[in-house]
């Protein structure tokens, strides 16, 4: 977004006043040194983590996925003795059930517990943005997955283990350029933050960079259900490709109605279509492409091992949320190892050290912009029943 977060006021306010009253005062006393139980640095034999995200409710799929990935990583870390032979990690999870107040209340409980060394934060953008200032204020390192909005990674103690969709959408534009699909129609959900941002700002910039010509750009709302007229308008224009930035049920309808209106060009969508969310569109979705930060079809060595390990443990193919959770947990472990200190302060320093160097995860080469993860992403194609990699 073009709105810069006015950090000046934020920090002024947090410095002068305890945002959550007595709570914050209690939460922050001594928290910095007691984390992990071993005050003088060093890696404690038991590292206690807290996971505060949705495991029920409308975005449960993201929380549950991240949790499964993180659990798998924890098992591997302990098995390998990555942090030392007798070091164990425990992750206690609480469900925020889609509620902001629940997230901030659980978060405040977690920071008040000096035993909690680090927190995995909420997956929903607004919950994350609400607890982020609390993390900064009480100096508890917090890693967020998903939560792609602004106001989440706001200082030294807030980290994000998911690259926002807009940061790797360039591979979509690149592909369109390479295939010579230069006339592009855009249809996007203007009330859904991630899509509004890509549709209004990121994609137009990318289009310019890659010599694409946006023939039309139509915004809809989250509660728009019928796309007949939009689809017909696009079919009449016959652009080379359509960039479709819609939420899951909308995408199924729009794809179907595009094909019913007689449009047969390339449709470029988003990672929302992953995990079989377009299966209901049947043959209308065949040939659909979308960039993702992780696909189980990826062929890197780490990715293949991860998919195998995940399938053994859970009996299902991992989705991107699981990969993000997995890589985030490894980020944390590497951080602790790098600083050799499992206190809150040590974890913060370690996470930043690892971020500065980058590392290889199941999502490929991970780089960081400050505390915020970046991936190159992969472009995949849905053939009607399965995802496969589009060779670049």
């Amino acid at each position, binding site marked *: 977004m073009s709105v810069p977060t006015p950090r000046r006021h934020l920090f002024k306010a947090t410095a002068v006043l305890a945002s959550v009253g007595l709570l914050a005062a209690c939460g922050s006393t001594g928290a910095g040194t007691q984390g992990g139980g071993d005050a003088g640095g060093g890696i404690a034999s038991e590292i206690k983590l807290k996971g505060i995200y949705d495991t029920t409710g409308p975005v449960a799929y993201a929380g549950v996925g991240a949790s499964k990935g993180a659990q798998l990583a924890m098992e591997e870390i302990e098995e390998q003795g990555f942090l030392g032979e007798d070091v164990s990690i425990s992750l206690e999870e609480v469900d925020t059930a889609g509620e902001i107040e629940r997230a901030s209340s659980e978060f405040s409980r977690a920071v008040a517990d000096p035993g909690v060394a680090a927190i995995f934060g909420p997956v929903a953008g607004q919950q994350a943005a609400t607890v982020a200032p609390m993390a900064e204020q009480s100096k508890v390192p917090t890693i967020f997955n998903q939560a792609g909005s602004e106001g989440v990674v706001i200082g030294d103690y807030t980290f994000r283990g998911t690259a926002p969709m807009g940061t790797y959408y360039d591979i979509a534009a690149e592909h369109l350029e390479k295939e010579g699909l230069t006339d592009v129609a855009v249809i996007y959900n203007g009330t859904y933050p991630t899509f509004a941002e890509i549709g209004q700002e990121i994609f137009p910039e990318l289009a310019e960079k890659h010599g694409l010509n946006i023939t039309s750009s139509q915004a809809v709302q989250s509660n*728009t259900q019928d796309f007949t007229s939009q689809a017909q308008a696009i079919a009449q224009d016959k652009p080379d490709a359509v960039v479709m930035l819609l939420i899951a049920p909308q995408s199924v309808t729009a794809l179907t109605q595009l094909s019913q209106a007689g449009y047969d060009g390339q449709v470029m969508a988003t990672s929302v279509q992953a995990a079989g969310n377009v299966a209901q569109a049947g043959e209308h979705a065949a040939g659909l492409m979308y960039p993702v930060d992780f696909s189980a079809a990826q062929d890197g060595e780490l990715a293949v091992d991860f998919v195998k390990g995940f399938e053994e443990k859970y009996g299902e193919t991992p989705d991107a949320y699981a990969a993000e959770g997995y890589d985030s947990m490894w980020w944390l472990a590497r951080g602790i190892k790098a600083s050799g200190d499992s206190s809150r302060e040590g974890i913060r320093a370690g996470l930043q050290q690892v971020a500065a160097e980058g590392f290889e995860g199941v999502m490929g080469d991970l780089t960081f912009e400050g505390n915020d993860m970046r991936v190159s992403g992969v472009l995949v194609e849905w053939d009607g029943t399965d995802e496969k990699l589009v060779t670049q």
Partner: protein
Amino acid sequence: MQELLNTLTLGSIYLLFALGMALAWSTIGILNFAHGAIFVFSAFSAHFISDFVPLSMPAIILISVLVGATLSALTQWLAFEPILKRSKNHRSAELRILIGGIGVAAIPIALVDWATASAPFGFANSSYSTQVYEIMGLRITNTSLIVIIAGVGIAVGLTLWLRRSRQGLGLRAIGVDSETASLMGVNRTVMAIGTMAIAGGLAGLAGALQVFQLQAMGVETGDQLLIKAFAMIVLGGLGSMAGVILGAFVLAGAESLIFAANMGTWVDAVSFGLIFLVLLVRPQGIFGRQEVRRT
């Protein structure tokens, strides 16, 4: 012309959803806020069964209608009737019926949400397939035709039945004055549960047809339509079935125009702004009558 046809289809989808709600409201005075949940749950039930056995369109619709009717009748019997019995008058019951409906709605929605993990569901396994026809340059699918015929047909049929038939008269009598009506030999409870069953069946029909038309449904669809349906009912005038028909097409028309002007993110503001203005000019809605006041 194509735009008109599209608007007609969209309006018919809205109308199908709103009809059941309007029927219950205009006759027995129940504003059922669980209508959206019943709509989603019926369609989901049909999806659930059709995942095991490939079903034809009529079979899917039948399942959806039956589930909707059962749920709605149960809601009336177990929630709304007890609320009415425990209230001094209908007016004081109104708010509690609203809240009761919201509470009831949470249950099927939570079940669907849990079962689908919030992913959209549809009838991909059904034997029905959509055909596209091109007549005189107009594109229309067989599903749209069914939706339009069902929507407009049932709406007109219901309106006439309420106006002309004996049962319709009885029902309307309950709406106006339930005490006198029962003195005249109208069995209120039975009539009310029957009406709610029909309303629920309509929700089920709407749910199934919407999935056929749009190919998928999200669990939040019911809530989104609920507020639109409420707007249509109020816009047309509370208690008037003809008003609902008009309300549905006015809303669909307004939305189509806004999309045509490529102001997609202003849809709610313009359509609800329109409703706001209509209410300022006609405080009883377009077809509302001043004398029957049950608000």
